[in-house]
């Protein structure tokens, strides 16, 4: 900021606000650069300078073109786009329908249903996929109980799309139900009074207003799909459907290591995310989504009994399929003595849980570490996400929102690449001090990977708050800090809290970055589970997964049982 501009500001606003504002901006930009900019920069450098890992900038560009011009890259790119689009569409249909049902029908115990439908999100995808497999594959639990299996479907592209949509639909469900619920009742009532039918209200008022949240959620699903590794790797190995992440893993995790090639493919993924992000900003630009104007909100209308029954049935069916099936697979495996003897009473056993709670392999420490790290990541991402959204809003929606782009970028870089970028950056020999080798690296990784969730939720919530509210408070003499504390934060808090829960749930089970960054000698829950699978102790791994899912779900219950913040 130039001196002249600064002086101009001084006359326009109280002195205090500039200090706080510019301090906030500097802190946010700095934190985002460290968290997101640095690892991605080092990935770029690695793609350009193949010998970066040895601290040398020799032979620049020698690896980039060969990596990108490889014959297989076009196919990988197409497969990735196809998978991302199909999963986003499937999630939109599935999660959208359920979200509308949840928001428009007064479902009894609605919050309990929310928790239940958040569960697919809290089951790590690689575990959930294994759960689906042990149920649906030939001689799986489905066949052991009902006599038929769905093997051919499971290992096909439609099967892959369905299973990934079952993991990811909650993002759309929550976005749709929250934003419709917060759509001012007065708008709906005004439309109804003007003679519109309920369907028309939905089409002309509710759905358009929910658009930013829905598009944001679909972007999340698309990005989460193209960056997901476990599910495609496990399922598609039989259908030969290779995507960018599996190809990157191939270059990183199998000897000989091809870091420059992996970095080049990662850059492709990052570009895909940027494109999706720009598309989303264009779509939203120039419209008003203001629904919270400070005027009174009316209570939702009551519904007929049959409608309620329909709503509950739909939610129950969805829960049964997306939560019940994989959870059954996980629990059945955890509670059997040996996997190969299947579901028989003589094979029932608590041995896996006994092993777990006698701290076999440090199971208890692994849980403690994961929950601690996940809490830190939730705090970091929420603070940064809100700060970036507030700053982005001040700047206005027109033009390229650099802060917003920075918060969305990590979405497309797979965990393995973020982890490599972090190692490359934090393990440079010239650094005077480094976090490398401590658990703080995991907080950095989780925060970087999950920042997009917090940022998206915060900015979608902010889009719905009228600037008039702030203006009115300012006129009444409130400082920007007070406006933020008393008006903005309480209004966006439900969204931010939801984002924090998601960040907590996802980071407490993040696998790929954890494996690469965990300090020597430490286990997280995910690396523990993965190690059990790798060593063939499927039952012990599933027991740990079951405990992890139970604990995260309980925490969510506690978090939502209390009403977080009252409306002022």
């Amino acid at each position, binding site marked *: 900021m130039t001196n002249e501009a600064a002086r101009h500001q001084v006359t326009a606003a109280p002195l205090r606000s500039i200090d706080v504002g510019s301090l906030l901006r500097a802190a946010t930009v700095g934190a985002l650069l460290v968290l997101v900019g640095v690892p991605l920069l080092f990935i770029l450098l690695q793609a350009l300078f193949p010998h*970066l*890992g*040895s*601290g040398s900038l020799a032979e620049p560009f020698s690896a980039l073109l060969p990596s990108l011009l490889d014959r297989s890259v076009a196919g990988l790119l197409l497969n990735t786009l196809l998978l991302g689009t199909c999963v986003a569409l499937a999630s939109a249909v599935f999660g959208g329908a359920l979200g509308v049902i949840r928001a428009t029908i007064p479902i009894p115990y609605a919050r309990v249903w929310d928790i239940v439908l958040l569960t697919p999100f809290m089951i790590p995808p690689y575990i959930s996929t*294994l759960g689906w*497999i*042990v149920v649906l*594959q*030939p*001689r*799986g639990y489905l066949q052991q109980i009902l006599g038929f299996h769905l093997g051919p479907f499971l290992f096909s592209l439609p099967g892959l799309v369905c299973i990934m949509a079952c993991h990811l639909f909650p993002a759309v469900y929550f976005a749709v139900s929250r934003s419709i619920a917060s759509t001012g009742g007065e708008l709906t009532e005004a439309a109804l009074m003007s003679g519109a039918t309920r369907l028309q209200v939905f089409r002309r008022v509710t759905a358009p207003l929910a658009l930013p949240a829905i598009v944001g959620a679909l972007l999340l699903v698309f990005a989460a799909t193209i960056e997901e590794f476990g599910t495609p790797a*496990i399922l598609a*190995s*039989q259908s*030969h459907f290779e995507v960018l992440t599996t190809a990157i893993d*191939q270059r990183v*995790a*199998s*000897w*000989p*290591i091809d*870091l420059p090639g992996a970095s080049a493919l990662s850059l492709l993924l990052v570009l895909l995310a940027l494109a999706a992000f720009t598309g989303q900003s264009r779509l939203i630009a120039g419209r008003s989504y203001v629904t919270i104007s400070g005027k009174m909100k009316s209570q939702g209308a009551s519904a007929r009994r049959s409608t309620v029954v329909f709503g509950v049935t739909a939610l129950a069916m969805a829960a049964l399929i997306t939560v019940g099936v994989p959870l059954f697979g996980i629990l059945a495996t955890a509670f059997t*003595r*040996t*996997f*190969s*003897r*299947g579901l028989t009473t003589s094979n029932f056993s608590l041995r896996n849980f006994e092993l777990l709670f006698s701290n076999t*392999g440090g199971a208890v420490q692994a849980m403690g*570490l994961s929950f*601690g790290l996940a809490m*830190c990541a939730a*705090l*970091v991402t929420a*603070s940064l996400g809100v700060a970036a959204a507030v700053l982005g809003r001040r700047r206005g929606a027109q033009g390229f929102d650099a802060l917003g782009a920075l918060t969305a970028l990590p979405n497309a870089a797979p965990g393995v690449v973020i982890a*490599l970028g972090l*190692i490359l950056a934090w*393990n440079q*020999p010239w650094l005077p001090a480094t*976090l*490398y*080798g*401590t*658990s*703080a690296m995991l*907080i950095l990784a989780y925060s970087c990977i999950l920042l997009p969730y917090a940022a998206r939720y915060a900015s979608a919530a902010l889009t719905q708050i009228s600037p008039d509210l702030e203006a009115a408070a300012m006129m009444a003499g409130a400082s920007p*800090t007070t406006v933020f*504390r008393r008006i903005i934060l309480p209004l966006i808090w439900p969204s931010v809290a939801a984002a924090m829960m998601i960040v907590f749930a996802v980071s407490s089970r993040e696998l790929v970055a954890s*494996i*690469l960054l*965990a*300090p*020597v*000698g430490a286990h997280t829950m995910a690396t523990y589970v993965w*190690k059990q*699978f*790798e*060593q*063939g102790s*499927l039952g012990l791994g599933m027991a740990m997964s079951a405990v992890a899912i139970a604990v995260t779900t309980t925490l969510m219950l506690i978090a939502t049982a209390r009403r977080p913040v009252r409306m002022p």
Partner: protein
Amino acid sequence: MRAFSLIVSLLGLSALALSNGSALAQSRITVYSAGPANLIEALAKGFKAQSGIEVGVFQGTTGQVMARVETEAANPVVDVLISASWDTATDFAKRDRLVAYTSPNAAQVPVSLKTETAVAQGVSALGIVWNSRSGTPRPSEWADLAKPEYRGLVTTPDPAQSGASFELIAALRAKHGNWTLFQALSANGAIVAGANAQALNPVLQGAKAAVFGAVDYISLAQQADGETIDVIFPASGTVAAPRPIMILKWSRHIDESKKFIDYVLSPEGQAEVAKVYLMPARSDIKANRPLVKDLTLLTIDTQQVYAQRKEILGEFAAAMGRK
């Protein structure tokens, strides 16, 4: 602002509580190890009890371990490396990254399992893992799995993801001079399924009947644990994968690292190796499983096949119908 400072102090506290890199014991070595976590943890514990030297362990697949070493190359922290693929020892020796050391305890290790800069910790072999409740006849040869009884019931680990699998397909190709066996397997519906665990899990539940070329020790342990599987080593020959243990040149704890290798090759260390159903590197240690002398091993010119790795993997993929 109060909430903000609360968050900041919470973060600071958690960072303090969680960082365990600060208060390090004075003598401590860092070991990166592929393979069974329980083995390296038992070795670390036993070594500490004996020598008082702390062992920090990072355990992953060979790929993950090597990726970590590569990315850290500018500022390495690892002292001792245990890989599941001898190729990495050859490669690191060529790049002059290894300390030459011959442990006094290596006297009982056969010459084929040691070089100037590396020595085997233990040895695994590849075999057929077969589910005895799958309703199929017990196979005894690789070629059996191409028979109609096993149609659509065979998996094999991806040789692109596993050094041992790669050596097996290279050796079988060299033996037969063609890819007919794999074309027959593919025609019989065999699938290439990721890493070892991904090939094995369907066989455990019975979705598939047999793994072509699974790592033996994991399945031997499962069999001992009551799983209804059998590990079969074809008489026509298989490959063994010695697991090299090496000291890195950049280590600042070379003396402690040498002591660690001595411990791994001591009778106690080798007994831990045998306990996880690996073959001990020393020929004078007993193990409850078939040993190298009980197996027919296929000969393979490692230097030559690794030089042609890309071509061989390409030909394999073509033979298995994966383009």
